[in-house]
């Protein structure tokens, strides 16, 4: 995915100004930045929910997974599997279930009664069912405990090896960066800057600029 002269204004607030940057395929591209710099707005703009200026190359098949991409809580895992197998390739759904280890989730309880970790697994199952070329995760592990996060890290690391997609991970959780190797980007002063070194992005994020 490539941003060309990308600018984003929400209300009177200019969040991004003439950004030119590429995100790498077959890698997890971590994006960090302070609150309010426009990370979630950037994510929403990639699927056309917010109007932007400039161009986003490779925005035709994006799956956005965040707090605003819910799955109906009254469904059970079994319902979800049936619906997905009806709409998408059933072999892909089965392989996703294996990778996500959904066998550990009870089939017959509604999603609303599941733990946060189980809910996030269901979200991944749903939003990756269409085999999207690009996956954008927005604060995906923020509500998870350590064990659930580690399971998600393992899944995403395996998924990217098997499927070779591009993943953009918008996060405040440095544990994401530590446990999922990839590329690092930092948002400040209305720009997105690529940071070559993991330690440097830790420094930037913790100490500020």
């Amino acid at each position, binding site marked *: 995915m490539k941003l060309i002269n990308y600018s984003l204004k929400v209300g009177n607030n200019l969040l991004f100004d003439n950004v030119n940057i590429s995100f790498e395929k077959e890698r997890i591209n971590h994006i960090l930045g302070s609150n309010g710099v426009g990370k979630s707005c950037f994510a929403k703009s990639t699927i056309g*929910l917010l109007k932007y200026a400039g161009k986003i190359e490779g925005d035709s098949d994006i799956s956005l997974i965040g*707090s*605003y*991409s*819910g799955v109906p809580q*009254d469904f059970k895992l079994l319902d979800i599997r049936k619906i997905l197998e009806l*709409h998408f390739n059933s072999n892909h759904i089965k392989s996703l279930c294996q990778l996500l280890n959904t066998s550990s989730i009870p089939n017959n309880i509604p999603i609303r009664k599941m733990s946060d970790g189980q809910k996030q697994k269901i979200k991944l199952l749903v*939003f990756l069912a*269409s085999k999207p070329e690009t996956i954008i995760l927005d604060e995906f592990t923020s509500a998870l405990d350590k064990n659930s996060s580690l399971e998600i890290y393992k899944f995403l690391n395996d998924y990217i090896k098997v499927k070779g997609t591009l993943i953009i991970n918008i996060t405040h959780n440095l544990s994401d960066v530590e446990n999922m190797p990839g590329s690092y980007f930092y948002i400040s002063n209305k720009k997105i800057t690529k940071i070559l070194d993991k330690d440097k992005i830790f420094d930037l994020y913790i100490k500020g600029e």
Partner: protein
Amino acid sequence: MKLELKRSINNKTYIFALASCVLSFILGYILLISIDKLETVPLNDFWFSVYTVYTQFGFLIFPVIVAFVYNIDYREKNILFYKTLGVNAINYYLSKLVVIILWFSVGTLGSLFITSILYQDFSNFLITFLHFESVLIYIILISSIFAFILKNLLVAFISNLFLWILGIVLATTNKVFEYLCYFDASLIRHENFEKFLKTGDLSYISVFNDWIYILAVFVIILFAVTISKKRWEKNGI
């Protein structure tokens, strides 16, 4: 459609829809006994009383369930889920609408059927059902469009009531505004249905006109849904 049917069963919406129809019938009966002081309740009087409950209290009872059905997806942020499955705003609106109408219709039809069996009288069954159904669909159509467009459940419910009351008020000033409260008990249509139930004279009723009206309302609402696609996304993302 199948998906919405499954959801309505999982989240017990169907129970609330069926129960609200049964409660309307019970209320219709109680009103006859308590207000009209009838000792024996003839079937046609009973049905007319329930019909009055549908037209007068319908806007207070049914829209709560209708608003819930749409609003739950805005609250749970489920619109991207539907988009992932290839469901667009119109499919989404219509599939929910069909399921809502289905459960309310089952409740109404079942209640009419049971009362017909109890009274062993099916003579006005079909015409009465069509009258009940037209009121029901009208209320569901109006409340569903507010629920679809407005993110806030309370605002959707109040807007719906506001339109209904505004229609009644305006109808007293000019006959043209009767179209805003077409089935209201203050209008001639309601009185004519009572005359039909008492006399069995078909010249009092206008089922065809009622359904043409419903069709016109549906077309307007479908247009409103079509131009509200972006709003649908914003409401639920």
